[in-house]
C-alpha cells in the first residue's frame, strides 16, 4: 500500500520539486502551503509521515507542530522538519515539541535523495 506523506511548504517551487520527487519514489503526497490547508487535509487524510517547513502562513511550523502534538492520534505520526531555519534556538524548540535533532533537516544541507532515505527509515 502506498505510504502517505503530508508536506507543508509555502515556497511553491520547492514544494513542486519535493512533491515530484516523492511521487516518483511511490509516495502518495498531499501538500499544503499554510496551516489552514494542513488541518483541512488532516480532516480526511491520515498520513504516515509529516514533512514540515517552519516558516509558512497561519500558525507557522512550530504552532502547527504544537497543535499536532496535542492530538493523541496525530502526535504518534513521525515528523521531519525540513526547513532553512537552523539556529540553536530552532533545534531546541523542535526538541521541546518532541522532534529530535536527527529529524530536523536543513534544506540547503540535504538533497532530496537524502530526504527520501530519511523518510524510508521512519516509515516502514
Amino acid at each position: 500500500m502506498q505510504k502517505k506523506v503530508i508536506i507543508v511548504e509555502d515556497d511553491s517551487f520547492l514544494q513542486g520539486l519535493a512533491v515530484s520527487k516523492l511521487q516518483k519514489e511511490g509516495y502518495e503526497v498531499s501538500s499544503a502551503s499554510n496551516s489552514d490547508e494542513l488541518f483541512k487535509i488532516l480532516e480526511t487524510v491520515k498520513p504516515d509521515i509529516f514533512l514540515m517547513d517552519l516558516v509558512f502562513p497561519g500558525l507557522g511550523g512550530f504552532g502547527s507542530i504544537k497543535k499536532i502534538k496535542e492530538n493523541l492520534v496525530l502526535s504518534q505520526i513521525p515528523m521531519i522538519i525540513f526547513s532553512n531555519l537552523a539556529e540553536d534556538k530552532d533545534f531546541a524548540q523542535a526538541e521541546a515539541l518532541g522532534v529530535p535533532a536527527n529529524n530536523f533537516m536543513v534544506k540547503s544541507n540535504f538533497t532530496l535523495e537524502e530526504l527520501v532515505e530519511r523518510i524510508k527509515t521512519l516509515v516502514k
Partner: protein
Amino acid sequence: MTENHKESRSLEELVQANELKSNLISISAHQLRTSLAALKWILKMLLDGDAGKLNSEQENLIKKGYESNERMITLVGEMLELAHRETTAGVAYHFEPENIVELIDETVFEFISESYKKGIELIFLKPDTLISPIKIDREKMRVVFENLIENAIKYSSREDKIFISIKEEENDIVISIKDTGMGIPEKDIPLLFGKFVRGSNTASIPGTGLGLYTVKTVLDQHNGTIHVESTPENGTTFSITLSK
C-alpha cells in the same frame, strides 16, 4: 534624567538594536538558504539524469555549478555563525580555569583521520612539564585550534608535517602551530585576519576567508595575541600568546 537612567535606557536600546540585527540575519539567512536549496536540488536532479542523460561536458559543467553552490551554502552558514558571535560578543564568553593541553589534545584527535587521509603527519609535541590551568572559554578556544589545524591541513600536501607545541613562560602560555605546507605570500600577511580575506595563492582551495577572522575575534576576547611567520613553499607558523 539621572545618569543611571540614561545608561539603563541606552543599554535597553542597544539590546533592542541587537535583537533587530539578529532577526534580520536569521531572515536573510533563511531566504538565502531557500534559493540555494532550490538550486542544489535542481542541479542534483540534472546530475542524476532526471531530465535526461547528460553528455560529459554538460555533466562536468553542472558538477562545477553544484560545487560552487555548496561553497555558497557553507558561506551562508559561516556568516550566520559569525554574525551571531558578533551579536553576542562579550556576553557569550564563559571563562573558566582549563587544562589547555587536554583541549589541544582533543582537538588534534579530531583531525588525525583527516590528516592521515591526506598523507600529512599531525604531531602534538606534548610538554614535559605540567602547564598551569588558564582561564579561557573552552569551546571558543577549541574553535581557534580547530581553525588553525584545519588550515594547516588544508594548505599542506602529502608528506608535509604539522607540529603543535605549547610552552609556559613567566606570564604567558605560548602555543604554536607550525606546518611545512605551501606558506603565505608576504604581501598577504598584514591582511590575513580580516573578514573574507583569502591568500592570493589559495584560489584553487575552497575556503570562506572567515576562519582566521574568527580566530582573531576569539583571541581578542581573551586578550590574547597571534603572530604569523611564513615562507612561501616552506610553511607557516602561527603563535598564540595567552596571558596567565
